[in-house]
């Protein structure tokens, strides 16, 4: 090859577009964390006693690690995948024993010096890796029941351990991997049925079950009438209808007995059933006020009153989007969501150009995980999704989250830079 000599260069074949978006998002995050916790007493943006000072440090560390990943052999990553996964599982078990309880979740392991490790953040990464490794191995097809079950187990074990903490947000993230399975051949009915059940769940909470059932029976009869010649379909539909009816009746039970009270309230608030602006609904309400008051152009950097005067809790972490919405307005929101969408679509594009199935499958994992975080996090701040505490990738304050997303993305960049070789 003509560029054989360059092959040993650090940044040979690196997808600079993704790196650029990554750097842009990290910078946006850093400035907005500064705005979120801004305090006249510590005006300097580099001050290690503050969140933005620490985040600066995290960004430096994350970038260094990103660079190190680019130096590694791709084969090393694939080879170590099971080991990473195993270590993550061990850490997830360890955290249940020695973890520090912060905000109701036993999710952190103290590292000393005020720094803490959140194993669940890394579990997303290692699960993606192992899933990619498994699905890319020969004779494995998602359409096979056995393969499918193994894939589900790879996803399910860390999910289960995280659920024990209990960290609902991080648990839900693993559902996003359904896109990966879908891309690799999972029947589209899983997606359709997934959406159907979410729709049924919300309807059953909002409206009396009998009305919901009447509507779905109506819809089913209509479809049966349209396709009455296809007997197989009719049978499937009738069976499906029965399951739906059973589900609708069980929703109230799940809702009242399986979900925890705080989760119930969060769903109620999202659906507008309850409004408790001083209590449980306070966060979302203040968050909406912050974003809504930003209008088109925002209030300007460091001029967000909701942000500066601490009306929105968790501003530098889960509710960081408030600061962006308030200080940069709708324009800023479009830019940010645009960046994310661009990144995710770029990741999909990059995944599709891989020769190696491992890289492709991993790429879809990266896209799914990042996108799911953005959707839930932003949706939560504007009241579209119940309050689920997961960070906004690359932007929310927090070393574990920034580090794990960086590694997630840079492994893909590394794999991509090596796409001509066979892994």
């Amino acid at each position, binding site marked *: 090859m003509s560029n054989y000599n360059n092959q040993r260069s650090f940044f040979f074949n690196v997808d600079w577009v993704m790196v650029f978006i990554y750097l842009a998002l990290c910078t946006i995050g850093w400035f907005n964390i500064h705005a979120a916790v801004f305090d006249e007493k510590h005006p300097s943006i580099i001050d290690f006693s503050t969140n933005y000072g620490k985040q600066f440090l995290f960004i430096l560390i994350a970038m260094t690690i990103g660079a190190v990943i680019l130096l590694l052999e791709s084969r090393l990553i694939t080879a170590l995948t099971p080991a990473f996964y195993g270590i993550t599982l061990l850490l997830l078990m360890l955290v249940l024993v020695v973890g520090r309880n912060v905000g109701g979740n036993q999710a952190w392991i103290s590292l000393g010096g005020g720094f803490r490790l959140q194993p669940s953040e890394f579990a997303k990464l290692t699960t993606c890796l192992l899933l990619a490794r498994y699905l890319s191995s020969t004779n494995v097809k998602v359409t096979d029941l056995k393969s499918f079950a193994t894939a589900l187990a790879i996803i399910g074990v860390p999910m289960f351990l995280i659920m024990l903490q209990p960290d609902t947000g991080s648990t839900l993230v693993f559902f996003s991997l359904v896109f990966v399975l879908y891309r690799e051949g999972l029947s589209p009915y899983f997606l359709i049925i997934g959406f159907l059940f979410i729709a049924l769940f919300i309807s059953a909470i909002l409206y009396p079950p009998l009305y919901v059932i009447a509507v779905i029976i109506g819809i089913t009869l209509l479809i049966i009438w349209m396709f009455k010649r296809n007997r197989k379909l009719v049978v499937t539909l009738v069976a499906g209808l029965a399951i739906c009816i059973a589900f609708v009746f069980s929703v109230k039970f799940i809702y009242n007995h399986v979900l925890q009270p705080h989760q119930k309230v969060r769903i109620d608030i999202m659906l507008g059933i309850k409004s408790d602006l001083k209590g449980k609904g306070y966060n979302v309400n203040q968050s909406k006020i912050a974003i809504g008051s930003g209008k*088109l152009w925002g209030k300007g950097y460091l001029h967000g009153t909701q942000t500066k005067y601490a009306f929105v809790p968790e501003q530098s972490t889960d509710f960081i989007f408030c600061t962006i*919405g308030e200080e940069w307005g709708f324009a800023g929101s479009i830019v940010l969501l645009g960046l*994310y969408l661009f990144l995710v679509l770029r990741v999909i594009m990059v995944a599709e150009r891989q020769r190696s199935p491992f890289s492709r499958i991993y790429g879809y994992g990266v896209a799914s995980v990042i996108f799911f975080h953005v*959707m839930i996090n932003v949706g939560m701040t504007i009241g579209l999704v119940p309050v689920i505490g997961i960070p906004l990738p690359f932007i929310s304050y927090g070393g574990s989250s920034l580090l794990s997303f960086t590694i997630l993305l840079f492994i893909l960049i590394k794999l991509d830079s090596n796409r001509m070789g066979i892994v």
Partner: protein
Amino acid sequence: MNSFFERRYVIAGIFITIVLILLTRLFYIQIIDQRYAIYANNNVRRESIQNAARGPILDRNGKVLVQNVAFYDIMVIPKQVKPFDTVEFCKLLGIEKPEFDKQWNKAVKYSPFLSSVFEKQLSVTTYASLQERLSEFPGFYSSTRYLRTYPDSVAAQFLGYIGEVTDRDIKRSAGYYHPGDYIGVTGVEKSYESILRGQRGVENLMVDSRGKPKGHYANGLYDTAAVAGQRLTSSLDINIQKLGEKLMQNKLGSIVAIEPTTGEILCYVSSPTYDPNLMVGRERGNNAAKLYADPYNPFFIRPIQAKYPPGSSFKPLSALIALQEGVISPSTSYYCPGYYYAGNQRIPCNKGEAHGLVNLSSAVAKSCNGYFCMVFQKLLDRDGAKQTEASFANWRSNVNKFGLGSKLGLDMPAEGRGNVPTNLHYDNIYKEGRWRSSTIISLAIGQGELEATPLQLANLECTIANRGFYYKPHLIKSIGDKNIVKKEYTERNYVGIDSQYFQPVINGMQAVVEDGTAIRSKIPGIVMCGKTGTAQNPHGEDHSVFVAFAPRDNPKIAIAVVVENSGEGAHWAAPIASFIVEQYLKGSISQRESGITVDYYANANRLPDTAMYLHHGPLKKKVKANGPQKPQADSVKSVKSVSRKNKKDTAAKVLAAQYLKKEKEDE
């Protein structure tokens, strides 16, 4: 190998759709829905009220009657408090432990992060000992508050007092007042509230989610500074005010003295009075309760709320109207046999002794009832008995011009009207056309239904002193540093009597003091013209009344004095008036030929006995049960009159008290 690759479009499509949903929602709450900007504003913006200092009130010579004095509120922010010696702290504050606990819990309940008042209104002395050590108690600090103080403790009914606004005040002010604000409740504090209160300042602060101030909203663009209330210069002369209050102590009644050339009220005594300082500070509630319980009701503003039959002090007015109407001349004479028959009604004169031949001046001087009955009948019967109604209406309108029977428009709340009966009043009693001059003859000598407030009596003297006009009487001479005088106070009010007719009347009034009924009250070196009166009191001893002005030429002071339950005007009211007049004109009081002294009058006790009705239980209930107008007959005959009078007076006082309270609510 790369099967299902077309599914990338499905996945990308789902991602794009979800981002579009998020953006739509963002567009809605950021661009379409305007409420959030308002909510955000409400979150951070707090109005902080800067109270303006209330304006001081001076006497006519610039002496301070009321000003502001610093008191110290001890404030607390519970979250900042560190463990401390509560016993020591209580000792310094002068409170007990339970009180401490109560206040502490209140403060914590209000807010752990915000400051609230822990102990109100510490005096300078208590504060002095606490101040040095306050730093030992973190979380506690002091806040200065200004309250009213009255250096000379005079003129309580004039000054009135301030109190916290009621809910009604707040409602009626259309949001100007806030709970905890102070407002004038009575007296000049009330009538000049809008001038005294000044202009409140507003600071628009930015607060954080805990309510802590974080700086000015929009860099103070919408802030306004507090403007202190304006100074009021009252027309009172503190020297004669003090003398008047001293002379009237242990008596019921009032003194009103007016400068005839301006209408400025020089002296405004209502007795019993109280120390206005009692209505300020921590003991205010207790003090007010005690004052309300006082059977003589110090809150009753006698100069404008009490009404008395003017008695003989009305005679000069009768004479003036008759002269103006042309029914008599100064030389019209009358032979007084010691009584007067109006129809078959016999009106005794001079305790039955004949005055003999009297003319206008001597009739005034000798206070001849007969002469003025004759004059009154001449007036009312001049167009024949059938025209009595018309003649009476004419007489009444003449009397009204002197300011009787209606409010004079004093710059004080709660002024009374007095009473001049109407035609209708008599029509109702006697039927239309069935009453004659003889029926209502008691009006001729200032009795019957006639009633006037001491202010109206004093104003009447001003009119005579000015020979035919008066200035609207007022208590505030000028407003503010620029001494602005209201225009209405510079306008003459003519009463429709030509000045030439005053001469004979004034001659008679001079004689009253020179060698008439009030001869004992003659002031060396000053020609005072006066008229004694004895206001008939059907319920007890008559009220002693004296009206006068001095000096005769270029009068400087007109005065009315009423001492309740004290008999003839010459005995009590006239000497008291003479001391006030002399003090005002000469600045000191000289030895009197008659030997009367200030101390004698100041020390005399003329209070009526309250023992009788105090045994009957709470006053208000009794009044409610029996109705204020119908005092219950008392079984004990020997004290019957006293008792009845007292009941009526009490009823009046209770009514007055209720009126005052009501007014505080209503006005």
